[in-house]
């Protein structure tokens, strides 16, 4: 295992109506093992495209992604995914969902203990025989997290995993993500459009800009470290949090306004 290298990725595709979209342009990121990186940006900045390229669902038009020196060609179990919602298998109960990866590998027996342990960690030990559609949104996301971890990936890619949750559940889940990150030492890339979440859950924070999607600014932040096993509300009022949040918010506002202006000028 070693770091994840996103090397000069560009993504450009033709539209059926003619013309083309430059979704990403010359994105380079070197992510160290065990790093927790959050990616932030206005809609249309290509952050989900970037994640899909890392996951192997999309191929970049130029550049490459390597994990531990090996080039990424398609999806693989070493890069786990956590989606916003709707990615659980309703026809399986909680335990079957979590043990999906081991079962596909044929290591269900050996990994049974690990699955049980993960269910414990995410607090679903009492729900393991339940159908997933009987769970609340927060619980479903815990299942998704546990399912991803049960497969023991090197990198966890999270595509707005907490986006559909209510504010209170979301805060609890943010604590859980931090806890899991610290306990497992996994490399995590988290996409979000909540500035606060990006600050709380990113020791490294990348702000992307749209049209073409590109890296705009990068921060190294202390809040994730502070938040591990601590009160996240205390972190939110701790030194530097507010200032950084305001700075990033105004940056994104400027981008949004620029987009609006350009769209209006174009029409």
């Amino acid at each position, binding site marked *: 295992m070693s770091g994840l290298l996103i090397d000069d990725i560009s993504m450009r595709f033709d539209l059926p109506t003619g013309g083309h979209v430059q979704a990403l342009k010359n994105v380079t990121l070197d992510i160290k093992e065990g790093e927790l990186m959050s990616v932030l940006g206005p809609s249309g900045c290509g952050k989900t495209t970037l994640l899909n390229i890392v*996951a*192997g*669902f999309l191929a970049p038009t130029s550049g490459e992604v390597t994990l531990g020196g090996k080039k990424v060609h*398609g*999806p*693989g*179990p070493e*890069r*786990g*995914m956590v*989606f*916003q919602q*709707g*990615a*659980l*298998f*309703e*026809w399986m109960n909680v335990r079957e969902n979590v043990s*999906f*990866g081991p079962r*596909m*590998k044929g290591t269900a027996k050996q990994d049974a203990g690990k699955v049980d342990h993960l269910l414990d960690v995410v607090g679903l030990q009492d729900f393991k025989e339940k*159908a997933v*559609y009987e769970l609340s949104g927060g619980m479903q996301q815990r299942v*998704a997290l546990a*399912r*991803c971890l049960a*497969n023991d*990936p090197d990198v966890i*890619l999270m595509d707005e995993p907490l986006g559909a949750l209510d504010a209170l559940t979301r805060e609890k889940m943010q604590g859980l993500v931090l806890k899991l990150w610290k306990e497992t030492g996994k490399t995590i890339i988290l996409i979000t459009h909540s500035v606060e979440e990006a600050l709380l859950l990113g020791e490294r924070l990348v702000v992307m800009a749209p049209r073409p999607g590109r890296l705009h600014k990068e921060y190294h932040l202390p809040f994730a470290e502070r938040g591990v096993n601590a009160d996240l509300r205390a972190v939110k009022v701790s030194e530097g949090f507010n200032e950084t949040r305001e700075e990033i918010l105004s940056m994104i506002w400027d981008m949004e306004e620029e987009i609006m202006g350009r769209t209006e000028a174009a029409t």
Partner: protein
Amino acid sequence: MSVFSDLAEMGSALGEELVGLGGVLLAAIPYLAGYIILILASMMIWRWIKSFFQPKHDFTSLKTVTFGDESAVTSESAASFISIILIFLLWGAFTGSKLLPSFLHAPGPFIGQSSFTYTVEAPDGATDEATVFIGVAPVGGQPVDPEFELGDGIAKNDSAGVVAYRSTLVPWDANDDVTRADGAKIVAIDGKPVDIGDSVRVGFGNVTITQRGTLNVAPAKGWQMEAIWLPPPEAVWSRVVRISQEGFQNVTLIQHLGFSLFRVIVGFILGAIVGIPLGYAMGLSNWFRGWFDPIVEFMRPVPPLALIPLVIIWAGIGEIGKIILLFLAALWIMAIAARAGVSGVTISKVHAAYSLGASKWQIMRHVIVPNSLPEIFTGARVAMGVCWGTVVAAELVAAEEGAGMMIMAAAKFQNTDIVIMGIILIGMIGFGIDLLMRMAERWLVPWKGRA
């Protein structure tokens, strides 16, 4: 030009039909209105009765907005109960069923003896009055001419016997002193002046002067249906009992129904065996989608019944032909359902499975197939319904045995009770099939509609 004249011709023919239809509909309006009033009245009565019960305190009962709230509208079982009872009540009332007390019966046909008078005018201007005695026998009885005395005058009394619902001609001049051949004619019935072709309402029915001057006597039919049009419920039931014991045309009832069910099940299973993989192929491959789309999209709107003639030409009227027909009926429905099931899989589920290390085959087995099951079940329910309808229709056309053949053969002999029995059994089996499919669905795909 000829297309337009054809259309115009069709238009005028249609117009006449529509005028006739409009008349029928207009005549039906009072009855429909009465039915709706019955519905509303029973609702009010039921609400009034319910007000004496302990009121419910569940969540829905506390809702103040129920008009327009879909979740507050459930099927009121009391209404279903009354509605079904009413159907049998009306059926019994208008067929004079023995299951009902007679005061609930609609007025029946006139039975018994009655009479009317007619006035004859001889060519010389002399007139005389005579009486016709009519005896009406119940359905199935023998018509008997009532006893009578000839009386005096140039016109003598007559008598005639008739069976309920039928009419009879009375040759009134057969025993008279002057006959039609002499130039005599009837000028009044029961004192009311009449002419050729006129019809007069008398106490027990209608009397018409035919074109040839005789009397056509039609006793009142009342409001009840004759058994050959609509038999009473108990007649249908006793027919069910008899046919289930004796069979119909050398085939037992169970065999008739069993043959139909067997054809449906075999046809459906074959259709599913071919249709589901076809739908999967169409949902998973561009090439297969392109290849089969025109075929499936063309065949889907063709009603299976339209294929009956072709199937008969190609495969005859035997078992093979029917199974081919049902196979075709189920095939397209199942293919489209399976295609929709595959297309309906959320991409994030597939992505998640790939990221968890699943192979293509494992994605198929653990994600795509289970994800498509709810759609396939919906399709299967539709297909079973269509197959059941198609098999009955196919048997109507040509079959040695089967539910459709049974009612078609019975209809040729105006055995209305068998026809109604068949319709009820066909309906119950169709309903039963759907019920079973729904139970299987709840058991096999409990996550349906809950993703």
